[in-house]
């Protein structure tokens, strides 16, 4: 939506960001076309991201691919779409809320497939009719979705060779489809000339680093493997399944194993069993699965067994809305365990950061012999994005598991140490055998119902988390001024963009995106908020879970405001922009 106006009447303004939705009924191939457009944008040197939405049907329902192409790293969707291009209109109106249009937008449709729904046309968007199906019929084996791809790519000014390369790569295993597809793309490109509007992008800035194309689920999976995970136990659940499906063959390449469990109770206990055996282990799930796992997370705390659980959050409670994003699992992640059970909770704050935060979570879990919950969400998990190759995690960010030497004299598995970490004996190591126990225990691991042992072990388990050095990764702190925004997870990119717009309007504020949510970091947050007179906490859930947590754990300076909204719709940068202007004035 942002435009850089050129002086004079012509040439037309060139955009720094363009948003496109491709829609149609199941089987129309809009996801395929969307993926090709995303990849073409990447080949042309742009950043881009794509989210997808589909009807409630398991297969074959209406579908929409929503793509943002940008000159700058794009971490969230924009407020409005510039182009809605549909192969047909069957049930596409269900996406009305997800594909907001405006008077400057363009709707492209096939007149033979009916008219676009009023939910789209009442926005004042221009309508352009193209007989996609008839045109496609004129091309042997031609398909309307490829026509749309060519048309839309031309509207935003992607070079032909970038589109051709994306199509060739996508059809590498179906060479027979290549010629008709490229012919349809060319026809679409021709049709673009007849459009009443175009949305040419500014030339992309030169790429400083290698670019990657991946989803947050894939990034988290790779981060886990980079962190050392070689055993995963998993039960399928939307929207975490793709993380597991990515990891299964990936682990096989690097000497690891993934096993499909019978349920989440099994998957977390299998992972704990594997980790007890000395192999860094992980499971991934979503809210309903996390709820089933919390008893065993307590076991990991008490037995001091490292384990990472990635929770790809979706709308809850209960089955909720499995395909939509929400940050509603913060409470269960922080407080769901019974007893006093200190553990790690982390949240990545971009698709790219899913890699680093998950890798860091593995390193911390291993170093501190603790469970770590990584709060990703559906937006990160299922968004496919073009990103700069992520920077390497510092080597000292979590040193790894401290293990017992063979025949260590007087070995005590749960020895009360100064830093709270006691060497873990790995099965197969002679002379240091012990029984890991969820029963409270003394230093040797022998079950104990003595209050003194309980206190000593509670203190030890808390101390190891509190004394650990989390360095600068605990949060991303940006900007200055006497106003501050605190947020986490997928709200971060939206808030960052909204704040940039507010900044152009004179609002100066700091942004604190918290990556480490537990244990609390009061001294670090206090330093980040030094001199602040007003704070707004922004999150995507119904009750302000982060706000309440901050109120409980931290002494926050100044006047506090909570801005929260549940799923299924995320905030957009425009929402944040408006809220920040209003908030800064009160």
């Amino acid at each position: 939506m942002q435009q850089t106006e050129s002086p004079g009447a012509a040439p037309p303004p060139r955009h720094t960001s363009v948003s496109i939705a491709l829609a149609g009924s199941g089987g129309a191939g809009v996801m395929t076309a969307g993926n090709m457009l995303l990849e073409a944008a990447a080949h042309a040197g742009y950043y881009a991201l794509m989210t997808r939405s589909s009807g409630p049907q398991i297969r074959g329902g209406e579908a929409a691919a929503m793509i943002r192409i940008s000159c700058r790293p794009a971490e969230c969707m924009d407020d409005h779409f510039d182009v809605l291009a549909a192969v047909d209109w069957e049930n596409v109106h269900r996406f009305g809320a997800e594909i907001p249009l405006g008077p400057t937008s363009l709707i492209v449709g096939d007149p033979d497939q009916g008219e676009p729904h009023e939910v789209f046309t009442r926005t004042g968007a221009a309508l352009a009719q193209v007989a996609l199906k008839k045109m496609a019929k004129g091309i042997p084996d031609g398909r309307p979705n490829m026509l749309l791809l060519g048309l839309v790519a031309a509207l935003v000014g992607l070079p032909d060779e970038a589109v051709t390369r994306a199509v060739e790569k996508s059809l590498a295993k179906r060479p027979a489809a290549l010629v008709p597809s490229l012919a349809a793309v060319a026809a679409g490109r021709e049709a673009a000339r007849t459009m009443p509007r175009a949305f040419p992008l500014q030339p992309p800035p030169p790429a400083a680093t290698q670019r990657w194309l991946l989803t947050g689920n894939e990034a988290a999976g790779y981060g886990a493997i980079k962190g050392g995970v070689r055993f995963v136990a998993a039960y399928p659940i939307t929207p975490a399944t793709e993380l597991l499906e990515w990891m299964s063959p990936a682990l096989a390449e690097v000497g690891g194993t993934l096993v499909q469990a019978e349920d989440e109770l099994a998957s977390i206990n299998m992972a704990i069993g594997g980790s007890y055996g000395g192999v860094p282990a992980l499971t991934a799930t979503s809210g309903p699965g996390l709820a089933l796992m919390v008893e065993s997370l307590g076991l990991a705390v008490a037995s001091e067994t490292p384990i990472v659980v990635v929770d790809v959050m979706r709308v809850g409670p209960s089955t909720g809305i499995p395909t939509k994003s929400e940050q509603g699992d913060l409470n269960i992640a922080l407080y769901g365990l019974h007893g006093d059970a200190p553990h790690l909770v982390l949240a990545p704050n971009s698709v790219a950061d899913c890699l680093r935060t998950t890798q860091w979570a593995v390193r911390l879990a291993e170093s501190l012999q603790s469970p770590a919950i990584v709060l990703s969400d559906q937006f990160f998990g299922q968004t496919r994005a073009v990103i700069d190759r992520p920077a390497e995690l510092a080597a000292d960010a979590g040193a790894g598991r401290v293990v017992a030497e063979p025949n260590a004299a007087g070995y005590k598995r749960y020895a009360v140490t100064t830093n709270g970490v006691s060497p873990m004996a790995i099965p197969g190591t002679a002379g240091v055998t012990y029984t890991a126990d969820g029963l409270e225990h003394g230093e040797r691991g022998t079950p104990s119902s003595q209050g003194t042992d309980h206190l000593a072990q509670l203190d030890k388990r808390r101390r190891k988390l509190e004394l650990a050095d989390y360095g600068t990764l605990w949060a991303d702190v940006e900007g200055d001024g006497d106003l501050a925004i605190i947020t986490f997870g997928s709200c971060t990119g939206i808030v960052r963009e909204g704040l940039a717009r507010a900044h152009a309007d004179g609002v100066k504020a700091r942004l604190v995106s918290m990556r480490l949510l537990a244990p609390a970091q009061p001294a670090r947050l206090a330093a980040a908020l030094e001199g602040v007179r007003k704070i707004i906490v922004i999150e995507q859930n119904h009750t302000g879970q982060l706000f309440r947590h901050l109120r409980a754990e931290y002494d926050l300076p100044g006047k506090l405001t909570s801005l929260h909204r549940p799923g299924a719709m995320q905030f957009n940068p425009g929402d944040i922009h408006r809220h920040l202007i209003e908030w800064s004035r009160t």
Partner: protein
Amino acid sequence: MTEALTHTDFKSDIKPVWCPGCGDFGVVNALTKALAKMELRPENVAVVSGIGCSSRIPAYTSCYGFHGVHGRALAAGTGLKIARPDLTVIVTGGDGDGYSIGGNHFLHACRRNVDMTYIVMDNRVYGMTKGQPSPTTEPDWDSKLSPDGTGLREFHPMVIALSSGANFIARAFTGDPNGLADVIVQAVRHPGFSFVEVLSPCVTFRPEQRDWKKIVKPDAIKPTSDIARAARRMLRDTGFDLGVLYAGNRKPYAPRGERANRDASVLEARFTL
């Protein structure tokens, strides 16, 4: 050359919490005898359990032990064995832990056929919580929680194990530690998932089980690899016929597909444009 270990080398110095006369003492004796007989080393054996009287066994051995949450012992054992196939993994527990709260894992452990041994000490009662009916309790057994009995048919672990795919199924009696030790040796050595149902009396809440020693029929059955034959026997027997009821030929669980051991950075090719 390390010295041969005796069964006492496999025992820890921790005093069991069990009642005098508990059948589970015999299982510790038999298990440690079996481990010594197989010439294993304590550090290469992991004993994994859930919650209940019998689930206390790991700490009473000198092996690596894992005493987890109620009902999930088979899951923890499965994860451990798949992650560390070099270890000998023995999962232990009771009838409530294994057949009630952990019932789903029992089915799937049999199906999955991971090369490990599951020893269930069945006393047909929840002992640690002081006398409630378990899945194997007789329907008319009176208790405070279920006065006049549950009215529910008993769970038949052997038939369930057979139909779910366990590769080795035996019934043994804790009153005969040597016989039980022999069965455990066979179970551990048999590839795949081995299930040993051990009749282990609870003298406190089921004192009538003291009579089991008079009822059991040692060596009543010979092993078969014929599933139909094994099923007929299991369905007809008295519940006190001892021996190996089934020894199958299924291949143990192994990860499928091509495996390699490359550096993690090879995976970046999947993302690189």
